[in-house]
């Protein structure tokens, strides 16, 4: 046999075991630690790479002032948070079904485009109320159509939905950009706000502008929570997500559930597009989605697909995004890509900390003791 006499015994120093479950507080502590580490890293990076002479602690002052600095900033942050939460709500139904909808950006853009098209062609020619009604219908339809195309192919041919929806993002982007060119052949590609058929403003100042999107998303959050938790549809889509075979066994029509759920997901993205174009910007541009289709995935994921938890994760991400914008201004960075870097690092930490929630590392005590002595 091949056993050599001189061979030493090497035991592994540690090994990994799966945890059965963790108490809620432990999960929160682990995630909080990850966030704190992320914020510290953020402070170090910003203060080290800035030439403004401000110190480490001033980073946090800027970060907070970016979101709480003035009443206007608070409303803007709430508006951003609402939009982001709305997108995440749209995505969460598809993720619960294990349908990787990476096409939020495209679905939002198509909603924006449909809304703006109504405003562009009909604004001023028909009463505003009629145009707004058409805007709502067309935005919801556009978002739903953009989501249901990949869903149809997934349902019938098992076509890879993540790449399909990704490609739909770019198709939407180029359609928007071509449409703007068609409308304003001599323009720069940017579009002036349209004055007609804007969604109503509900008060004074920034609050009035932001209130409608916020209220819409508040209603959406409650509705989606009930839909996922208490409705028959919600039950069906989680069965389909957990195991298609079980769904078949029970007699759930998997194809119908996939298509129905994606129509819902796309329709909500369409509503977000409606808010973006109809209530906030009054026009359309090819980057109006603000990459929320991706950020929304993070929001949904960080909250483990729980609509209530998503309120917190949407707040946190909005906080970092807006806060970092302020930091960049205060610390004299011309390029706000720095905030993407910081956000990326915080994502890594939060994604990575899941490991310490699902697994535990057991060190080899015998070996550790040997090392100490």
């Amino acid at each position, binding site marked *: 046999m091949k056993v050599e006499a001189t061979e030493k015994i090497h035991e592994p120093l540690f090994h990994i075991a799966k945890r059965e479950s963790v108490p809620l507080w432990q999960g929160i502590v682990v995630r909080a630690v990850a966030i704190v580490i992320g914020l510290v890293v953020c402070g170090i990076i910003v203060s080290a790479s800035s030439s403004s002479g401000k110190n480490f602690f001033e980073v946090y002052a800027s970060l907070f002032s970016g979101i709480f600095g003035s009443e206007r900033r608070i409303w803007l942050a709430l508006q951003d948070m609402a939009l982001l939460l709305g997108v995440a709500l749209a995505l969460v139904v598809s993720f619960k079904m294990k349908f990787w909808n990476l096409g939020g950006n495209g679905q939002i853009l198509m909603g924006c485009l449909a809304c703006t098209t109504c405003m562009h062609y009909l604004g001023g020619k028909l009463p505003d109320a009629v145009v707004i009604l058409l805007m709502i219908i067309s935005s919801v339809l556009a978002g739903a159509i953009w989501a249901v195309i990949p869903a149809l192919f997934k349902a019938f041919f098992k076509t890879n939905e993540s790449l399909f929806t990704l*490609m739909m993002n770019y198709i939407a982007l180029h359609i928007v950009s071509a449409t703007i060119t068609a409308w304003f052949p001599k323009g720069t590609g940017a579009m002036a706000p349209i004055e007609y058929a804007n969604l109503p403003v509900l008060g004074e100042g920034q609050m009035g502008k932001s209130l409608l999107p916020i209220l819409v998303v508040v209603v959406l959050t409650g509705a989606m929570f009930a839909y996922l938790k208490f409705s028959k549809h919600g039950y069906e889509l989680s069965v389909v997500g957990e195991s298609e075979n079980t769904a078949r066994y029970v007699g759930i029509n998997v194809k119908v559930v996939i298509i129905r759920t994606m129509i819902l997901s796309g329709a909500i993205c369409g509503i977000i597009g409606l808010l973006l174009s109809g209530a906030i910007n009054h026009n359309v541009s090819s980057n109006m989605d603000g990459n929320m289709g991706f950020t929304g995935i993070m929001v949904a994921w960080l909250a483990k697909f729980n609509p209530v938890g998503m309120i917190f994760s949407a707040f946190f991400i909005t906080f970092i995004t807006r806060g970092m914008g302020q930091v960049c201004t205060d610390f004299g960075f011309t390029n706000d890509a720095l905030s993407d870097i910081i956000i990326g690092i915080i994502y890594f930490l939060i994604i990575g900390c899941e490991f310490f929630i699902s697994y535990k590392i057991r060190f080899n005590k015998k070996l550790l003791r040997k090392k100490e002595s």
Partner: protein
Amino acid sequence: MDIFLAKAIEFGVIFLFGCIGETLTEKSGHLNLGIPGIMCAGAAGGCFGAGIYLTSVENPNGFVTVLLAILFACLFAGLLGGVYAFLTVSLRCNQNVTGLAITIFGVGFASFFINSVVLTLENASTLLSMAGINFFGAYLPIFDKMGVIGTIFFAHGPLAYLAIVIAILSALMLRKTRIGLNLRAVGESPATADAAGINVTLYKYVFILVGSAIAGLGGLCYVMEYMGGIVGSTVSSTIEGIGWLSIALVIFTLWKPDLAIVGSFLFGALYILSNYITGVTFVQTKLLNLVPYMVTVIVLIITSVRGKKENQPPASLGLSYFREER
């Protein structure tokens, strides 16, 4: 027409790097949606490597410039790939989410790093475009003697040939060698590979890192060869789009690096089509930009409808492996 074909190949090379990188990664069972970000990191690293060298010596040597750019591109891309590998292999995090985070980070990083570090080097933008044209665009001396064939196939910089060599080597590796067999086993069924004594973790790490480094060269290729070293503000968003297409190309080419050569050139042609078609309106040009994405969608549909056993993705693609799973 010959210029169009030559440019198609030149652009296709970018896809080829991305596609080979993702193919190798997927063969190890990991769907890396971070490739667009990793390609951006490669571009940033390459510009940095070349920029540092160009701004610090009097008479820069072309070979050294290209070599340094390649090294730094691989290094930066590899580092970001390392983050992905650590999160998904060691910490067993969800691959889709991790990949998206990598892309968000990489795109932001490249944009910030190129503007705030590389371009703040003295004279960097002039020197980089000089290097782009003279060093990265250096042609093989034989091309002008061969007419049209020369223009199409031999009028490319060193990275183009490097890409083809890498593609052929990868194909041979997967098909003929023990390492290739082991790698495929890891991607198909890590538990089987593990029980057969293959170091699954090592294979996953190595091929995610190698795949990322190769993909990073795609970013470098875009900036230094295709754009001729002109570093604009839209670099990272353009590379991001190329990156997503590269991932789609992996499906199109059925996880086969040799097919990827042909597929990449086809995609290259589609991507630049709008710049070379004459007699269309501005709006139509804009619409032509969505052709590569439409084609990808159609290809996705066709491959899924046909669904042959040999043409399927590695069986455990996207799943984490934990040996003691019960």
